[in-house]
């Protein structure tokens, strides 16, 4: 059984006096124990909303969440609010993009880590603080004894993100969701944090959902990658297959539009034309059709289905990039 099995998850934003907006549209994916799964896409593709829906962190008002989120076979969406709160932190940890706003500014770092242990593991304060110190040490925070007593504003962005990871890992969750954990950080700090995450996943055996817009981050970290566009999964493949042979024109375009450090300089980048504002509703066809170079008649005759590929992935495209030319 999969650790996490997301089935047909949909999130519809319904704001007063406005058209309902489908942010996540029947997204399905699974996470096996110890696996690292990537959710990749640009702003507005629904990747963050998916993670919030899984965690039950979307505000009750104005959102309609449907589908199933099976964690260990139990549907998280059906849990009572209190039970879900118990699950968060204990079974599922989450790391956010902005470590400063995710930490409480008036409570010392050590206490924030310890509180999680007290709440979920029933430790007393002294024991919890001792374990918090070990956790800070494990996530590579220098001089953890001193850091225990410091406040979030007193440490740097990279250290804050480490502290946040320590909090997320405090109860040894079986699943960790990281939502753009390095986007606000500098490259050298990003390298530190990614290395740390990789190492923690290896050591603790926790599964990881990595949400990012950066294909480079995914390339070195994820076992399986889900590419999202307009709220739907458009391509799913194992890491090596995806980067070696991107089949969906969007994935393909994305890979070819980023300048690479190791590419031949001066080569023109192959931009995807238009922007997400040009999307058409999925009901009319493929949302990506207006920006797609491979568009065919079938693309405007309703949404293409997500179908398995020969290489064990899934693809939602009527006219995928052929395998011969797909190598970037």
């Amino acid at each position, binding site marked *: 059984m999969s650790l996490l099995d997301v089935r047909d998850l949909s999130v519809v934003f319904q704001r*007063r*006096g*406005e058209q309902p907006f489908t942010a996540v549209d029947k997204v399905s994916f699974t996470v096996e124990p110890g696996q690292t799964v990537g959710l990749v896409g640009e702003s507005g593709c629904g990747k963050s909303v998916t993670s919030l829906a899984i965690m039950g962190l979307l505000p009750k008002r104005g959102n309609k969440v449907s589908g199933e989120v099976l964690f260990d076979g139990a549907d998280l969406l059906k849990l009572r609010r209190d039970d879900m709160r118990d699950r968060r932190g204990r079974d599922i940890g989450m790391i956010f993009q902005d470590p400063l706003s995710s930490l409480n500014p008036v409570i010392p770092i050590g206490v924030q880590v310890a509180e999680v242990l007290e709440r979920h593991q029933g430790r007393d304060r002294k024991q919890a603080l001792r374990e918090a110190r070990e956790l800070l040490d494990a996530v590579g925070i220098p001089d953890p004894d001193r850091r225990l007593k410091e406040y979030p504003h007193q440490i740097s962005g990279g250290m804050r993100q480490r502290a946040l990871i320590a909090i997320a890992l405090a109860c040894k969750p079986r699943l960790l969701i990281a939502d753009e954990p390095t986007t606000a950080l500098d490259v050298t700090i990003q390298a530190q944090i990614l290395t740390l995450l990789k190492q923690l996943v290896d050591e603790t055996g926790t599964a990881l959902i990595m949400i990012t817009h950066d294909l480079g981050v995914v390339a070195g970290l994820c076992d399986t990658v889900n590419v999202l566009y307009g709220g739907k999964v458009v391509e799913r493949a194992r890491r090596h297959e995806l980067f070696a042979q991107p089949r969906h*024109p969007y994935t*393909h375009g994305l890979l*070819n539009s980023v300048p690479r450090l190791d590419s*031949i300089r001066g*080569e*023109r980048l*192959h931009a995807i034309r238009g922007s997400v*504002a*040009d*999307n*058409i509703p999925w009901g*009319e066809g493929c949302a990506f*059709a*207006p920006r*797609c*170079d*491979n*568009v*065919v*008649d*079938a*693309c*405007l005759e309703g949404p293409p289905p997500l*179908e398995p*590929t*020969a290489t064990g992935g899934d*693809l939602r495209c*009527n*006219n*995928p*990039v*052929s395998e*011969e*030319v*797909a*190598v970037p």
Partner: protein
Amino acid sequence: MTEPTTQAGPPAPRRKGERPGRTGGNVNRLGDRKKARLEELAQASAGKGGVSLFRDAMRRLRRNPAAIVGATIIALFVLVAIFAPLIAPHDPVQRFDELTSKLAADNIPGPTAGFPLGSDELGRDLLSRLIYGSRQTLFVGVLATLIGLAIGVLLGAIAGAFGGWVDNILMRVTDVMLALPALLLAITLVALASRSSQWTVILAVAIVNVPIFARLLRGSMLAQRESDHVLAARALGVKQRSIVLRHMLPNAMTAVIVQATLTLSVAIIEAASLSFLGLGDPDRDRAEWGAMLGDAGVRYFEVRPELAYYPALAIIVVALGFTLLGEAMREAIDPKNRR
């Protein structure tokens, strides 16, 4: 369709940098009818455009029920004030024999034929006085707010645009003014003017609101000064005067306009409070809600509480109208709510 069988000709050998679909052939696979449909869909999502921020905010405002309720109350209130002579059944000053004849220390006549809300303590028509009272409330409230706004904006703009010691001095003065409770300051001002009139009320309420506007505008001006688009204007080589007048001030004023709407409700309550305390216009004939509440409402509360209820209700409803509209405006201009 997983195999690209529709591709014409043999697959071209892969060359670095060569991308599928960049050759015109693929686009032709889209039929003309579908091409037209795609364009149609694209057009639908592009929208018409040319909507300024102001019009955009107005559109959001119109969709907000709170704004509609607030605006309706204000519109009714203004209409009543303007057309008071046409709406009011009687002269608000005239004492009617049929009412005065029934007046006694323990009796003030209630609703009778021709006098829907009955009499006030002097035998005048209560409804007509309430209707005429809206004029006074509107006049004092609007004028006090406008004067406060004008002085506040001037001081705030000077402080915000110049900075330095000018800013320092102006802000210390406003600090002192803000430290005093508004009503106390107004009472002091009225006391300083040897004789109270509606002008002392207007001036007092206006001055009380000056520091609020000044600080608000100064704060937004400073924020604007640090903003990227002002930096961009400097980089363009736009003249300093033009930067202040065209970029900083108009953008900073948005918040001030919202505040002015909210201040109108405060000003109305403050003016009424001063009248209630007997610090308003000494002319007892002039209908004024605060004075009606203070004079008769309190004194004859045991005899006929409606004398207090009606003016109090009028003040509350009108103040609520301005508050509702102001809050809705604040919400409408908040960029976070822009879609």
